[in-house]
């Protein structure tokens, strides 16, 4: 039997909620089968992944800690994605943000720099933005694909990080480990809840979400960005500046990733080290899509992905699962989301034989 996919005139509202839920259910089923096939206790694995993070205040606070960078980066990226500006290199902008922020405590290790923390965040924001805008410049001036340029820039950022950590920025008293000095107290973000590592970067992320929501849903600029993504020709005829969308889409993505990078070194890490490249930039792409590129949806999806991160750490202990299980889960989730997302955009129509 033949069938066709017919694009809906308006997205099915019910499907917008059911698609991510269905994707999560499918992902759980698929992972259960996979873990069982590998001879692991699949039930225990899923329990550790999805439920255990809620069972103690500390692990829940760790979820919130993870959520801060993922949410912030994903909100920035989603704005670009909705305008068909594909910034795939948020990981690079995150690293550059972390590097720029670290420059201050590295050169003023005694903390005698006025307004240390705000300056670090500003440096990080600036670094991430400028790094992303290189791709915008190449795209608007030469038409170079921002997908590939941002990706290549991310890989270059890793090399810059390696160079600094192995060379000029290496802590002279760090036993030759590739890491900088520990940051002074005034270079650290204040903790939000006593006894946890959750810091005020979560507030930045929630503020960014409010900003993204107001801009995308209620501001003319957001309307322009959405039109550019949904109906490029219409945007062109309406006279919306195409290059402005590219600059804005990439710039905001870089800004968010840069602040997230700065918050990472001024937060849980407390120094610049190699583990700053932990893949938040890539995971945030998954967060943005699974959240339906919607500012509210992204709050939910960033929470879900953070739960899985913390759950994955638990599962390595309790269910003997390698950390990679988290990647598998994320990959499956995005796969099933993209699949069920069809429900939103299309309806299936079966070809019926025309009666003679």
């Amino acid at each position, binding site marked *: 039997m033949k069938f066709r996919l017919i694009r809906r005139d308006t997205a099915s509202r019910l499907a917008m909620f059911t698609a991510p839920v269905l994707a999560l259910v499918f992902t759980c089923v698929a992972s259960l089968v996979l873990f069982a096939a590998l001879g692991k206790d699949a039930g225990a694995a899923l329990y550790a992944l999805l439920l255990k993070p809620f069972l103690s205040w500390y692990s829940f606070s760790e979820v919130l800690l993870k959520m801060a960078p993922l949410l912030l980066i994903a909100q920035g990226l989603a704005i670009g994605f909705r305008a068909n500006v594909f910034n795939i290199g948020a990981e690079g902008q995150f690293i550059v943000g972390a590097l720029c922020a670290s420059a201050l405590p590295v050169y003023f290790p005694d903390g005698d720099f006025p307004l240390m923390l705000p300056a670090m965040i500003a440096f990080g924001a600036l670094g991430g933005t400028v790094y992303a805008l290189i791709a915008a410049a190449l795209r608007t001036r*030469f038409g170079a694909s921002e997908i590939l340029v941002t990706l*290549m820039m991310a890989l270059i950022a890793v*090399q810059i990080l390696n160079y600094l950590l192995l060379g000029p920025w290496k802590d002279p008293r760090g036993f030759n480990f590739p890491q900088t000095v520990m940051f002074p107290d005034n270079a650290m973000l204040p903790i939000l809840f006593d006894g946890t590592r959750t810091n005020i970067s979560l507030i930045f992320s929630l503020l960014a979400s409010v900003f993204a929501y107001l801009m995308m849903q209620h501001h003319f600029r957001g309307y322009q960005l959405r039109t550019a993504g949904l109906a490029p020709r219409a945007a062109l005829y309406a006279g919306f500046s195409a290059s402005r969308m590219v600059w804005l889409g990439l710039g905001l993505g870089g800004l968010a990733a840069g602040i997230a990078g700065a918050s990472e070194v001024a937060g849980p890490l407390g120094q610049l080290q190699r583990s700053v490249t932990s893949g938040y930039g890539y995971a945030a792409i998954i967060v943005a899509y699974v959240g339906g590129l919607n500012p509210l949806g992204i709050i939910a999806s960033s929470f879900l992905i953070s739960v899985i991160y913390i759950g994955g750490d638990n599962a390595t202990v309790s269910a003997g699962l390698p950390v990679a299980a988290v990647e598998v889960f994320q990959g499956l989730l995005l796969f099933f989301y993209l699949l069920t997302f069809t429900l939103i955009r299309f309806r299936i129509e079966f070809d019926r034989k025309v009666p003679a």
Partner: protein
Amino acid sequence: MSGLEFLLAGTLAASLPLLLAALGEMVVEKTGLLNLGLEGMMAIGAAIAFICVFHTGSHTLGFAAAALISTVVAMFFAILVIGVKANEVAAGLAIGVLGLGLSALFGKSYESRTISGLPKIDIPGLSDIPLIGPTLLTQDIVVWLAVLGSIALWWVLNRTKLGLIIAAVGENADAARSIGYPVVLIRLCAVAFGGAMCGLAGAYASTVYTPLWADGMIAGRGWIALALVVFGTWQTGRVAFGALLFGILSLGELTAQAMGVGLPSQVLSSLPYLVTILMLVVISRRRSGLF
């Protein structure tokens, strides 16, 4: 062995995973698609090939299994992009992450295990040539097969009707469809081919080049292969040349020492990416609109 001899002997083997993956992706992109999941498809291929060779001792079986599993993963991409018309960037990342995760999951219990690689073949006559004979021209069977395969691919793409149809599908899918070419089938086959090639590339990396399992052993080769397709401007010969060049660069510090260059190795490691950005700028002509 001197630095130069080392480079001559090692370059082809270092280039091979890049070459195979890039040629596969090149065919995918020629049909008008972009699959960003190379790294993941190579990683899962590498894991399966290693496990297969570890238990059976047969490299043939290992390569076949790797090609098969990576094709299966590539089909997930096809379901999303060709089947339900999902965003290809997101779809590519999904299978990339999935492939990397599965690779680590399956490979977990083989961490640091070793297997034997493939013997280098002495070809009488060739290996007697001074300097390049015992180094550049003494390679394992896979290298020679890959050289023949690349020539065959060049021939198919440039000298046959199939090559023209593939180009037509990529240049203008609607036009190709309207004159009756099976666009969906061609793209499906291209994605499958791209997957299989990534599988073979991963298999070579894990069972021949460094026959030892370590998580994350693909180490960014998939991204370099992706860059390579652009660098080679979607032409078989240039992609092959680029693979050699990037292969030499991937030998990193050793190359720097051999060439007597005082640059940090990170500069050399960044070169493929920098050159690719430069290529993108040079080849991308400004179109009428940006959307």
